[in-house]
């Protein structure tokens, strides 16, 4: 710990001190991390708009809303288990969030190879999630006949919200997986130890990049928590 930063006031007086310091407001926060947080805040509003419009559509339709528990049920050796695939997807995504948190920790401890392995594990978890989502979409489109404009279970809006909400989330996961693979490679090669310049930004980087990557990945998990609650369980 730096002895100078230790002197910063904490809590509420820290808040007024930081904002009134006539300097950078987010002390001890690297700019990349602050920018990622601000991006995530804007992304929060996008997903909120999706989920709030889901609420609006569901509350204003006079037709019965499809029972998600039945629509997403899975026949497991002759037994109908409700939401089984969704539950497994939830556990996979939480697990990948856990490995990501551990990767961030190993990164800051400069354990290069452990960090890269855990990033790779995280990426594989994300890939598994996207794979299961592709399976789910295939099942719903080809076997259950769900379309954005109609479905055999109830209110016609159900399909469009399903594809919109899970599709947008799945896109986030897919982008995250791509970047996790890139970061795993960079970490393994030692880019963050040697401050090697990135091929795209041509800027030097360090293990803070892993934490910023982690923020994005945890956010994807966070959004899934809300989708799981509002779309699948409600």
């Amino acid at each position, binding site marked *: 710990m730096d002895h100078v930063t230790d002197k910063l006031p904490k809590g509420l007086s820290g808040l007024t001190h930081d904002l009134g310091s006539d300097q950078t407001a987010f002390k001890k926060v690297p700019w990349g991390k602050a920018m990622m947080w601000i991006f995530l805040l804007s992304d929060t509003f996008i997903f909120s708009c999706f989920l709030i419009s889901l609420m609006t559509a569901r509350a204003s339709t006079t037709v019965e809303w499809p029972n998600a528990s039945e629509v997403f049920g899975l026949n497991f050796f002759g037994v109908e288990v409700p939401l089984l695939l969704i539950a497994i997807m939830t556990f996979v995504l939480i697990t990948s969030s856990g490995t990501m948190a551990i990767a961030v920790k190993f990164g800051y401890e400069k354990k290069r190879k452990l960090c890269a392995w855990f990033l790779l594990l995280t990426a594989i978890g994300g890939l598994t999630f996207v794979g299961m989502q592709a399976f789910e979409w295939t099942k719903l489109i080809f076997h259950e006949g769900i379309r954005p404009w109609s479905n055999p279970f109830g209110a016609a809006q159900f399909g469009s919200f399903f594809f919109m909400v899970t599709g947008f989330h799945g896109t986030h996961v897919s982008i995250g997986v791509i970047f996790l693979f890139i970061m795993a490679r960079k970490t393994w090669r030692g880019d963050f130890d040697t401050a090697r310049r990135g091929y795209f930004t041509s800027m030097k980087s360090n293990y803070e990049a892993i934490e910023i990557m982690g*923020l994005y990945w945890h956010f994807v998990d966070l959004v899934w928590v809300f989708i799981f609650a509002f779309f699948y369980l409600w």
Partner: protein
Amino acid sequence: MAQENKQEVTTHKIGVYLWIWGLLFVFSFFSYMVDYLNFEGLLRWALILLFMFAKAALIMAIFMHLFWERWTIVNVLLWPMSFILVFIGIMVAESEYTFFTRLFYFVVGT
């Protein structure tokens, strides 16, 4: 004063993350059980929201390190989210109005 912005690096024991990971599993299992055991009505919604907020809080506080961040960034990030609640309130009123007019015109006709 310029050094005030110098970054510090703290890492936490791996046990912290494993604990949170375990708790997230437990909460997810509970919220799945809400559906599996067919809880209905107010109890169902209360439990869904409870487990959802518990999971969200754990992820944000520990995994995303907000618990260890300074109050400035925590406040700047969390307060704008209260607008979401305002928006929910507006849209609840709006959707109830739409529902009412639909019912009215489906029954009475134009």
